């Protein structure tokens, strides 16, 4: 009895102690981001890799990285861009381009809400748009964008994924030609490309390109709800400077947000409008059935002169080289984040329509009507911050804007423009992301700030560090910084989505029976080696824990050996790897049911081993084989075997 009494006393005392401890706030923050072992995150966050050229997948709130999806860059980890099947994905009109600068992921939508079928991302340097399948988490398609340069105001999608839109940052001569750089003004063009997305297959095709005046088209977002059918692009360098832009493109007091009525232009081109222009751009499509990509060069693009379509394009004056262009969930407010200003400019869609109907123009630029600033302005957010870049929305009437220079996130109210809260970021935040935060239906639980500068946030790793992200809880009135985590590459933007919209559809294996790869080995009995002149094709299968065949003779110096590896596993998370000594390429990582091909050009006589690079089973270390390489003039016939 006495023991019982003291236990109660003790536990009471303990609880009191916890309640009054100064660590209480921190420990409740820890609970908010703690995803216990074996439990799963609430959201997926897809972060662009920036100069990694790829897309990384994280969980929120844990900040754990799940996968790096290779998109525009060769990826030796899986063999993407190295295997014969995936090399065509990186073909362009400039030849094989094994890298890009990936920027703005955007998840497909239906009725303005995330549907989790695909995610699109732009390659900024060699203009390309990629579509990633969210069942396989693999890049399914890449289309090059002609007449574009610095594909930055991309890859944003309309609210039923009718189009993925790609705008050019650099204006360039269209078509490209040899001309003096300083004749830029009035001669260069800015192409805004509307790429249609097939609602079933997701396949992309450039429907039309709008050839706009030679400004820099920085960022964009679609109208939604009542403004569905419009697209908004921020511009800078309306000065059309071609040198020392940091000064010369910062002279105008106001640049523009270009409002594009794409429905009107779509109707125009559907009725035969527009000019077909010779072009040359790559369209690369990957198939889950053949496990192979094809690259096709497209020779023509439909261009549109916006001045030929009355009512298609208007300019909304917006102060000071606006960067981010964001549209609130209702579709009413279009936010210009005036990078070189302290203020945010918010335009009203209704006012814009009224001004257009009232024909209240303030002149024109290259034939495109300019609306009066005062007529379209809904309000100005005077935040006191510096360098506003991007805005996202929580679906509860609030907006969150990043300020690069003053290094903070500011929460403000739509309609009243009052600042509700501000929290520092560490350091110099670029983009921010709320899951669904640029759709009709945001999931306003967290905001992730993606910072450009890391400095002392983590243990130092020499001069080069990963970028830093911060997670804020935004369920309360005030934002609460709850977590800090490093991100891979340089995330420019991210797209988040509730896990339940994607996780149940995620593929576990590829069905071997459905494998249509030309070089697949569907049963071990089909494993063989075939010589075709100097080319030797090895049809090889893998299953725990052996290659079939694993002894091959009759290969000669100077041959080109193709290893066509088919993984016969039909079990979740059992890939097999393949690597050959001295091979001038990467390994292969072959998923269950998949076929991948790797080339080896043996240079030395001898007996050379290969092995499985993925620890597949208890007998992984036994999963190996040999190829005998004979002199170029040898008469040894090809032979192959397993287990004799």
């Amino acid at each position, binding site marked *: 009895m006495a023991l019982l009494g003291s236990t109660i006393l003790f536990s009471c005392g303990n609880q009191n102690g916890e309640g009054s401890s100064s660590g209480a706030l921190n420990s409740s923050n820890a609970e908010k981001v703690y995803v216990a072992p074996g439990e799963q995150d609430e959201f997926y966050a897809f972060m662009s890799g920036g100069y990694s050229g790829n897309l990384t997948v994280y969980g929120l709130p844990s900040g754990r990285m799940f996968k790096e999806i290779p998109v525009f860059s060769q990826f030796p980890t899986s063999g993407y861009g190295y295997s014969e099947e995936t090399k065509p994905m990186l073909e362009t009109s400039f030849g094989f381009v094994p890298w890009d600068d990936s920027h703005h992921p955007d998840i497909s939508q239906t009725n303005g809400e995330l549907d989790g079928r695909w995610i699109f991302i732009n390659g900024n340097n060699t203009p390309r748009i990629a579509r990633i399948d969210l069942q396989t988490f693999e890049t399914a398609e890449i289309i090059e964008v002609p007449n574009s340069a610095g594909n930055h105001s991309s890859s944003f999608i309309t609210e039923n994924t009718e189009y993925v839109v790609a705008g050019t940052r650099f204006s360039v001569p269209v078509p490209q030609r040899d001309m003096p750089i300083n004749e830029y003004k009035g001669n260069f063009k800015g192409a805004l490309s509307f790429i249609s997305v097939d609602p079933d297959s997701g396949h992309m095709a450039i429907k039309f390109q709008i050839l706009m005046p030679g400004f820099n088209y920085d960022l964009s977002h679609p109208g939604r709800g009542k403004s569905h059918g419009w697209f908004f692009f921020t511009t800078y360098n309306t000065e059309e400077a071609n040198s020392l832009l940091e000064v010369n493109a910062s002279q105008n007091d106001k640049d523009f947000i270009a409002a594009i009525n794409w429905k009107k232009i779509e109707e125009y081109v559907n009725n035969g409008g527009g000019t077909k222009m010779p072009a040359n751009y790559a369209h690369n499509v990957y198939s889950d059935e053949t496990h192979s990509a094809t690259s096709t060069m497209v020779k023509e693009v439909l261009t549109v002169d916006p001045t030929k379509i009355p009512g298609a394009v208007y300019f909304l004056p917006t102060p000071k080289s606006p960067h981010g262009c964001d549209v609130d969930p209702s579709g009413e407010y279009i936010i210009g984040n005036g990078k070189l200003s302290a203020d945010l400019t918010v335009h009203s869609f209704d006012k814009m329509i009224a001004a257009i109907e009232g024909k209240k123009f303030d002149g024109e630029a290259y034939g495109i009507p300019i609306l009066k600033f005062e007529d379209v302005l809904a309000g100005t957010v005077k935040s006191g911050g510096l360098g506003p870049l991007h805005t996202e929305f929580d679906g509860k009437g609030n907006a969150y804007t990043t300020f690069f220079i003053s290094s903070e996130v500011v929460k403000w109210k739509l309609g009243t423009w009052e600042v509700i809260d501000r929290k520092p970021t560490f350091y110099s935040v670029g983009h921010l992301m709320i899951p669904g935060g640029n759709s009709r239906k945001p999931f306003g639980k967290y905001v992730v700030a993606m910072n450009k500068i890391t400095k002392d946030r983590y243990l130092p790793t020499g001069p080069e560090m990963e970028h830093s992200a911060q997670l804020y809880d935004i369920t309360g009135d005030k934002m609460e910084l709850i977590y800090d985590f490093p991100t891979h590459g340089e995330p420019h933007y991210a797209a988040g989505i509730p896990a339940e919209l994607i996780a149940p559809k995620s593929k576990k*294996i590829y069905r071997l029976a459905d494998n249509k790869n030309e070089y697949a080995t569907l049963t071990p009995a089909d494993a063989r080696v075939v010589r075709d002149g100097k080319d030797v094709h090895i049809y090889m299968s893998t*299953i*725990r824990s052996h290659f079939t065949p694993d002894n091959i003779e009759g290969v000669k110096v100077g041959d080109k050996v193709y290893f066509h590896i088919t993984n016969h596993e*039909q*079990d*979740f998370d059992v890939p097999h790897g393949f690597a050959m000594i001295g091979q001038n390429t990467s390994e292969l990582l072959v998923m269950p049911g998949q076929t991948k091909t790797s080339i080896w050009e043996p240079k030395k006589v001898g007996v050379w081993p290969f092995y499985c690079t993925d620890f597949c089973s*208890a007998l992984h270390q036994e999963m190996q084989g040999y190829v005998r390489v004979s002199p170029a003039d040898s008469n040894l016939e090809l032979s192959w075997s397993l287990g004799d």
Partner: protein
Amino acid sequence: MKKASILMIVGPLFLLGLYFFPLWNIMLGAPQYPEPLGMNIYIDGIKGFNEFDIQNIDGLNHYIGMKTIPKPEEMWEFGMFPIVIGAMVFLGVLIGILGFINKISYKWFLGWFILMSILGVLGMYDFNAWMVDYGTNLDPHAIMKMANPDGTPMSYKPPLLGNAKMLNFDVASWPRTGAYMMFVGMMLTLIAFYLGWQQRKSTFQEVKMKSQK
């Protein structure tokens, strides 16, 4: 007798469930198989609980030298069982109909039940014998040769009924829908017998009472 006969007709029809639903199920879970592998045993063959489970169980079993899970054509039972069940359904329904038109006595109901029970026990015996062979008759060249603490080779016979631990796997072996339907059907025939017997008794008493008057 009418009510009893109707039950006797309905009861055997429940056995038809065996053509559509598994009789038995064996699930194998392990740390690296959070979603367990499993096999459903039907009267005409063994199928994976998920599409590729049989292939994956065979893949694991090859390490310890177990034979692959038999295909329908590899075991005569899978050809015979559907015929036996079909014959028993036919027989049971026939007995019920004959009972209904008072051609035969309710005692036939019990006869069917006993015959079905004997066949059931034989089936279980046969199934268990196969599992013993499957779990102990191992390839002498097996990759892993596991032994019990006393030095005897480890056997991998799954339990006929219940749970067991086998190396890293937790094995659970339980009847499934087909078996439950068979059980219900057989119970109905037993009830049919009981009703028939009771009615017979009361009819007998009535007759006795009438004769006393």
